[in-house]
């Protein structure tokens, strides 16, 4: 089973429904120890980076331990930002630190913030998380903060300026958009993540 981390930042119905449509049911661990048998971990989320405060050191250790064993991790939206070292949205908190860099607010010069709607993926590198996804494919975003473009960036999206919209390093992947609301393209990306997951 794949663990869906519920830290009470928004509604998880759509994420559950999308994985269920791909025959990959999710379970929601109540405590960090419940992650022991997780084949993979999904960290969803919308809203404020401060909400990740609910994931204290015990959760961080348990998640990092699973990742260290090579179990895949997918961060969605705020969950992707949490893969980085931190965010200027809540400077007092630290992220997982699996990827280098700090998240920051998109400047609102010339464009509306939050960035809401369908925007395109400009591929930067060819990695498994974007397999069978056409360059320029559109996906659904709703966010104000973004992750920096680094060597782990797989795709960038431009809203005023470019930001990392897909990241991957080995078994760790993240998407700034909502694959569960991005039609067939979103489902394909979730399928690509599932192909990283080994047998039970």
């Amino acid at each position, binding site marked *: 089973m794949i663990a869906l981390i519920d830290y009470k*930042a*928004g*509604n998880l*119905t*759509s994420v559950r*429904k*999308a994985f269920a*449509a791909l025959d990959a049911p999710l379970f929601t661990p109540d405590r960090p120890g419940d992650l022991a048998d997780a084949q993979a971990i999904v960290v969803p989320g*919308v*809203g404020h980076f401060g909400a990740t405060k609910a994931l204290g050191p015990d959760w961080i250790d348990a998640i990092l331990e699973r990742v260290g064993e090579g179990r895949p991790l997918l961060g969605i939206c705020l969950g992707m930002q949490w893969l980085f070292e931190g965010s200027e949205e809540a400077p007092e908190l630290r992220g997982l630190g699996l990827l280098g860099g700090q998240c920051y607010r998109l400047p*609102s010069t010339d*464009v*509306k*913030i*939050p*960035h*809401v*709607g*369908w*925007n*395109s993926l400009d591929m930067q590198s060819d990695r498994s998380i974007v397999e069978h996804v056409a360059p320029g494919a*559109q996906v*659904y975003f*709703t*966010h104000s903060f973004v992750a920096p473009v680094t060597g782990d960036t797989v795709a960038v999206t*431009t*809203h005023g300026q470019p930001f990392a919209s897909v990241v991957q390093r080995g078994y760790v992947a993240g998407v700034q958009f909502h694959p*569960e*609301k*991005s*039609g*067939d393209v*979103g*489902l394909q990306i979730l399928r690509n993540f599932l192909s990283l997951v080994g047998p039970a």
Partner: protein
Amino acid sequence: MLSKRIIACLDVRDGQVVKGINFEGLRTAGDPAELARRYNAEGVDELVILDITATLERRRALADTIRAVAGELFIPLAVGGGIRTEADAAAAVDAGADKVSLNTAALSNPSLITTLAERYGSQAVLVAIDAKWEGNRAAVYVRSGSTPGHRDAVEWAKEAEDRGAGEILLTSIDRDGTKIGFDCTLTAAVSGAVSIPVIASGGAGTLEHFDEVFTAGRADAALAASIFHYAETSVQSLKQHLRQHGIPVRL
């Protein structure tokens, strides 16, 4: 570049889509899930279910409708009509709505906007504003446009944003159902006053009306119901038209 969104609205009463439906090949013309599937296949960017049921059994029927529609598609789904309390919103979200749309309740109890934004995030809270020109001022109306809200639409949109709304769904009462075009003056006034996206509604009759609302009207998204239901135009042909006219859309 961020695409302009085309949003289809389903007016639902007692679990059935009302307003005329004229699609070919639908088994049940008024079945919301079937219509949702059709729109999704045509490439609509988002769906709004507007519940216009007046009975007390409404909520249960609405939850069933949301569940049926949400099971059919993986694009954002907003639900409005009769959402007056946090519990109403929770029932819609639990059934699969990604966003709830507040109208009358937001004006009479503005703290509901903040309560829901804190619980679900601003992206999940649409504030619907129905406006009508009174001289050179756009006045807010509530209760399906029947009752003056005693507010200026631009001022109310700004307050809704400050209170945590993630988007404004702006309907021109003057244009609704007329098919003479969106009210671009109204839309541009609200869009220029807030930094959150504005969805224009009311008056769509031709493909050119959408060009106008995305340029002169500065809308981020446009919503229509009957122009799609009657199959006067398909979402796909509308988007192709917009792209030919230099407006970014998802195709």
